[in-house]
């Protein structure tokens, strides 16, 4: 039976090439945009270099002080004191990595300006983030305690600062007039990895200025790593309990908000949430509304064309009905035909997406961000295809099944 439907569907597609082209164009283009967008989202949210343990990590990125009476708000990142004195006392996390958010420093090599983003970290950071070392290795706790001026640099920083030389281990790199001995070179990562991005990684003990101040806000962030994914809720609960006991020590503010969020939570909190709620449900609602609106136009277009094509086949429908085919069979047949059409459009869409993603990766608009069409994205694309096929097939099929036999045959 299905084979028959398939044959008919192909025959119909061949009959009116212009209409087929319009349908396929609409489906494949819409799908391409959605697939490229999901590839982006996938890259942002799922584990990728160097943050492969994302599924069992929580991130502390901001500290907000609030005066609930006056409505004052003061937001910043966390202080070393808060992370070292309170957060690092937690029992459940397997490891806790502390780092600063990157700042920029200038260096001048042969009168050429090199801008590097420097980042101070502790030793555990290197165990949590799995950087790929092209040469050398990270600094150890011992080196941090000794306040050694050592640095791990990124591949692009090596190229910009030292030029095309093979090994830079043991050489000195100068930033803001301080020299650091290079002990490692890591592969580049995209700028979108806000917690991990840097060109020059330094031990936190050699920070300029005083980082040990007793206060809650400073330039630091932390990543908490649980032993397994199942431990994450437990770790979060322990964290919440601990943080609720931290005093503000500041007469102007009576409340502090320091959230340990998963990647998805911290993203939605930034866009749609506030201190109290991460706004995940709000994000899902807004994103799905947007996708629905985006799909509306191609769908109406497809329904329109489908109706036109179906009315063209009124004589065929009339004959089949006259010979006793039930409305249900006809509806079923038409939906199958339509799904075949959309799947065909889907295949073209996948092909177009691969081309788009390839072009995007080549263009280097966002350096080091290599999108890929992975299994999740493909599955998502397939689902959209089926959804499309059903949505644009049901209404025309229903209209068709109500055709009167006499009128349908007379139209001939």
């Amino acid at each position, binding site marked *: 039976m299905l084979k028959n439907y398939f044959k008919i569907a192909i025959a119909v597609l061949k009959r009116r090439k*212009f*209409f087929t*082209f*319009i349908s396929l*164009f*609409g489906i494949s*283009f*819409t799908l391409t*945009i959605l697939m490229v967008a999901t590839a982006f989202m996938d890259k942002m949210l799922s584990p990728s270099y160097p943050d492969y343990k994302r599924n069992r990590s929580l991130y502390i990125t901001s500290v907000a002080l609030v005066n609930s009476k006056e409505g004052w708000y003061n937001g910043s990142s966390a202080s070393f004191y808060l992370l070292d004195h309170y957060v690092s006392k937690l029992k459940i996390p397997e490891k806790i990595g502390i780092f600063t958010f990157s*700042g*920029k*420093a*200038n260096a*001048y090599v042969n*009168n*050429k*300006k090199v*801008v590097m983003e*420097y980042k101070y970290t502790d030793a555990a950071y290197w165990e949590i983030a799995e950087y790929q070392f092209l040469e050398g290795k990270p600094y150890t706790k011992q080196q941090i305690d000794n306040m050694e001026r050592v640095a791990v640099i990124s591949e692009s920083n090596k190229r910009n600062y030292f030029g095309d030389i093979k090994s830079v281990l043991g050489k000195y790199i100068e930033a*803001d*007039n301080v020299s650091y001995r290079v002990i490692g070179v890591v592969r580049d990562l995209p700028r979108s990895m806000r917690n991990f991005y840097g060109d020059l990684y330094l031990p936190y003990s050699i920070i*300029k*200025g*005083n980082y040990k101040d007793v206060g809650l806000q400073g330039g630091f962030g932390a990543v908490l790593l649980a032993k397994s994914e199942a431990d994450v809720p437990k770790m979060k609960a322990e964290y919440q309990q601990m943080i609720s006991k931290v005093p503000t020590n500041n007469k102007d503010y009576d409340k502090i908000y320091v959230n340990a969020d998963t990647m998805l939570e911290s993203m939605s909190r930034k866009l749609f949430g506030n201190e109290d709620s991460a706004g995940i449900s709000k994000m899902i609602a807004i994103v799905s509304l947007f996708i629905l609106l985006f799909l*509306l*136009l*191609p769908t*109406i*277009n*497809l*329904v*329109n*064309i489908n*109706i*036109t094509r179906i*009315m*063209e086949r009124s004589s065929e429908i009339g004959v089949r009905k006259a010979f006793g085919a039930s409305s249900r069979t006809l509806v079923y047949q038409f939906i199958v035909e339509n799904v075949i059409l959309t799947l065909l459009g889907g295949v073209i869409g996948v092909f177009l997406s691969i081309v788009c993603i390839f072009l995007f990766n080549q263009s280097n*608009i966002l350096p080091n961000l290599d999108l890929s069409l992975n299994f999740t994205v493909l599955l998502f694309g397939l689902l959209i295809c089926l959804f499309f096929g059903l949505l644009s097939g049901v209404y025309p099929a229903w209209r068709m099944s109500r055709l009167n036999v006499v009128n349908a045959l007379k139209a001939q």
Partner: protein
Amino acid sequence: MFKHLFKLSWNKRKQNFLFLSEILVSFMVIFAVFSLLTFYYLNYTLPKGFESERVWSIAYSRNVKINDNDSLRMYYENIRRTLKAVPEIEELSFSSSNFPYSNSHSTTGFTYKGKEMSPINNYSVEDDYNKVLGIKLLEGRWFNKEDLNQKSVVINQTLKQAMFGDEPAAGKIVGADKEEDKWKVIGVVADVKAEGDFWPAGKSFYKRLDTGSFKWVGDILLKVSPKADAAFESRLNKLLARMIQNSNTEIRHMEDTRESKNSDTIIPMIICITIAGFLIINVALGLFGVLWYNINQRRGEIGLRRAIGATGSSVSFQLVSESLMLATLSIIVGSFFALQFPLLNVFNVAASVYIIALLLSIAFIYLLVILCSLYPGKQAAAIRPAIALHEE
């Protein structure tokens, strides 16, 4: 004529329903895109309000361990003197971190005669700030030594218009109701588009940095001479590192930050236009297909019209106007929704932006429908009455 066309469309309202909704949705999409483009374009045509060429910014971290206000001031005044003595540096001013294109914001707000004025950009500047950036003075004067410990403020044109209209602003008192928040306007400056070339300046409030502010100020703006090159920048960086102890300093060129600020607007805009463009091509092809098919369905009717004396061009004119009739219905409904934007003042954008966008989208939809129905109309004109009626 119109009555006749309307009757024809009304009789087929069921078939036309999808056609109508498709035009309606595309109209809304086009309206959104045109609103965005009009907004950007109108802002782009406004003058920048200052000169970003040869302006460099220096950001430094404040790690100096001096707690006493006076000594701190001495320390930074010394830096100022040293920098001033460098021949390549023409002008120099300390500034709060929200100088143009810096991605940093500080806002304030108050109500004036019952009108809400917030948000107002709050800039903290020095006496030479206007010389560094070349800001044009429209009324009154810029800050000078007399303003020491005075509550003087310079406002920009937009804020002046919002508060005083066309009256002169110099000498007026503005601010919140509390006595310590009263400020005396001493001058009005031209709007400075600090958010990039595509964004409006907004309302701005310039205050003079007071003597205690070196505790929190972390930026210096420089106007350098044309001779300043990379070698000079390297020397300057060394000099700064020597003078400002224990600090990370970053020198940026305002032309570069301007470019990156503009590309923050341009790249999403290009993505938007591309997606909307593809949607429109999609819709256009769909409309074209449906109209073409409809005309083939109406061969009998058209044949009859030709037989009783209609010319080919009048038949094709009729078909094109039928589609335009349908488009008009959608546009009326769409305009009803679109007009809510200026009426409700959504996103705080000037009504003129929405009106221009509305007119553009109406013209665009008509053009689209005409283009899509022209060829099917021509086909209809070519129908020979004898053949068409013979088929019937």
